């Protein structure tokens, strides 16, 4: 286990260097004058002009050779200092913390809702494969997957905010604000989780060790909790990990529809404004999240999987 964690930590360092450097190079090769873009972000479209752009260029030293600016970023990174935003002049660590917190909050609630509904439905559907509930679940899954989250989000707002008036339509800052965006994401996720859980449970139930467990006299509930769910869990947890990544990186549309100030929002603004250190920091945060979630998935599946006698993962 320690070997795995050490290896993943090294991977994280490598990913950080590669991703932030790649971002730097990509932003530098994009068309458009950096100073003008940053000035547009700072002063807005009514006030951006050559004078404000020159002011920005002088203040930020944008004329310096690119390699000097990259070295500066690396040096800052070594001190765990992400610097300040070129546009808002606020600390990037603070802005990133805020955006990451908002995205993780949304993703966690969506995942929890998706898991609860999806795994329950899937396990229930697997009870009688081909039965009425199984067919209904399949129908619901297809329906929910066919609806893009954007349309689903609008439908949820229309029903719960406009017609029923029980939830806020959009915004951030109150506990209730997370309900609709999370539900919009969770409905699609629940469908996926239901399918995976159902198929895996059906598969595991058909295995010899489950049949043996039944033969040796264990009752249905014990078979389900000790053998079926635990073995199915290995597949489901890996799948949840993948979905969590897709979720965190793919919530831009939902964040924009619901006015949610997450990573997607921060990244889009930073790219539009050419806020180079903010783009680097956001991309690094996303990359590190991949490493962290993958590690968490590996560790938890190792803990759940009953097969290996030693709780060790081959890295």
């Amino acid at each position, binding site marked *: 286990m320690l070997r795995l964690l050490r290896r993943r930590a090294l991977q994280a360092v490598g990913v950080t260097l590669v991703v932030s450097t790649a971002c730097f190079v990509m932003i530098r090769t994009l068309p458009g004058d950096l100073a003008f873009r940053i000035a547009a972000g*700072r002063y807005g479209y009514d006030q951006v002009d050559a004078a404000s*752009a020159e002011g920005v260029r002088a203040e930020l030293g944008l004329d310096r050779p690119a390699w000097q600016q990259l070295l500066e970023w690396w040096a800052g990174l070594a001190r765990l200092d992400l610097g300040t935003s070129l546009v808002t002049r606020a600390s990037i660590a603070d802005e990133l913390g805020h955006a990451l917190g908002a995205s993780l909050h949304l993703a966690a609630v969506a995942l929890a809702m998706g898991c609860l509904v999806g795994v329950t439905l899937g396990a229930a559907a697997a009870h009688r494969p081909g039965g009425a509930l199984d067919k209904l679940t399949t129908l619901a899954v297809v329906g929910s997957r066919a609806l893009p989250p954007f349309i689903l989000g609008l439908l949820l707002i229309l029903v719960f905010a406009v017609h029923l008036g029980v939830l*806020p339509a959009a915004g951030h800052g109150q506990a209730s604000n997370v309900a609709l965006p999370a539900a919009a994401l969770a409905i699609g996720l629940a469908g996926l989780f239901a399918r995976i859980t159902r198929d895996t449970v059906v598969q595991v139930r058909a295995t010899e060790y489950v049949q043996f467990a039944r033969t040796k006299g264990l009752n249905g509930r014990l078979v389900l909790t000790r053998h079926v769910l635990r073995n199915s869990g290995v597949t489901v947890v890996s799948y949840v990990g993948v979905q969590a990544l897709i979720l965190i990186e793919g919530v831009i549309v939902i964040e924009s529809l619901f006015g949610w100030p997450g990573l997607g929002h921060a990244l889009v603004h930073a790219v539009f404004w050419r806020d180079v250190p903010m783009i680097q920091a956001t991309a690094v945060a996303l990359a590190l999240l991949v490493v962290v979630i993958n590690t968490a998935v590996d560790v938890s599946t190792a803990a759940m999987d009953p097969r290996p006698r030693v709780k060790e993962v081959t890295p």
Partner: protein
Amino acid sequence: MASTPTLRTARAIVALTAVVALTACTTTSDTRDGTAAVTGGTLSVVGPVEVHSLEPATSSELFTRLQVSETLVATDADGALRAGLATGWHADDDTTWRFELRPTAVFHDGEPVTADAVVAALQIAYDKEGSPLTGAPVAEIGVDGDDIVVRLDEPFASLPAVLAHTSTQVLAPSSYDEDGAVTEVIGSGPYAISAVHPPQRIEVTASEHWDGTAPAITDVTYQAVSRAESRALMAESGQSDVTLGMDPVSLQRLQDVDGVQIHSVTLPRTIQMKVNGEHPALGDPLVRQALSAALDRQGMATALLRDPEMAATQLFPPSLADWHQDDLTALEHDADEARRLLAEAGWEEGPDGILVRDGERFEITLRTFPDRPELPILATAIQAAFADVGIDLSVSISNSSEIPAGHQDGTLDVGLYARNYALVPDPAVTLLGDFAPEGSDWGAMGWNDEDLTAALEAMAEGLDDAQAADARAQVAQIMQDELPVIPVAWYRQSAVVNERVAGMTLDPLERSWWLSELTWSS
């Protein structure tokens, strides 16, 4: 022993389920509380502008709009100057202006607003980028007794208007750090900041130090939501009390919704095309007139802006009453006239229907940006209109700064944008910059007119009322004939206001939302 890990797993599953259930329950119960808070005693204002900075020049006017901070000079619902932090002002002589301070004004930290504090704030604004004050011919900002005295290098009649610009807002000395950067917004207006949560939320509450009539609504939350559709749904569901920055389609839909009212005001803002006067084709006034005649402004305003009255017939909208000239010949759509003018300028139809002169196809690129959502759709309508008269127009939708950048490096052909002629409440200040002989990022490019420059400079130095009216008429006429920028549409700002709220008036200059004048309906 063998069952221990299984038991642990089972327990973990139960715990996970409990956590998930708890999260769901918390969400539901919080929801009810949350909704109650929104519809309670706090006014919820929703708009598109995000909170990215506390600095007066880069805070998108949010703190003057929320009436947290004041400027020396304010404006009324007609856009005319009125007392702000200064109760009165006058010119001692051609180059000296005196502003008398409101003696009872107090900052939200309890410190009185002194002439020294005002001068310090103005000096910081003057030293920073992004303020029209920097462009004014200011020699010195000083104190004389309780008055603020501004000495100029040359006569500048628009100084009071410049001191109404939001970048000159006066903050308490404790708002700034030692480098002059704003760390906290401590103003002297009816509302004081309770919390700022960038990029989306500002909470304000009625200030106990305000020396005017106490606001009827004491608590206000401003929330930035970038999508117009989402804002419309917030208005429709009653989540927001005042919703700003509505798109034409949502606005049309909300007109039939019960419980909300729509307030509108025309802004001194014109959607226009900046044309490169040094471009081989576009430098010819005949071609610019042809481009103008090719535009079906009425059609664009009706179909795209859903507001036929906003079709521009001249550069200055009726909301700029002093500048709008009723007797000017209106700019009209006439595709045949456009083709005739282009033929007169030497352009002939090529084999593919695109005009050709001396072997050169009439190909140009229009740059615009999506910050104002109607600009890209207007750009495509312009593209179709130009194609109809044989001009191949490519549309490039990018960042707003691509227009000034293209002006600087000479690569811009045509730029489409909305220009606010009352950035400073006196349009002459903006015009003087935009149509300076050397051109300007958001104004003329490769074009100048001596008569226009002379008229604007005379206005800056100060003219009597009759002379000023003549000069404005002359400026409007030159713009109409020469078309250094081609007007496309005027602008109407709308706000959706919940019926729970009464007393809403929209500011044509977008400096303030005048929330302190709102009341709850009975």
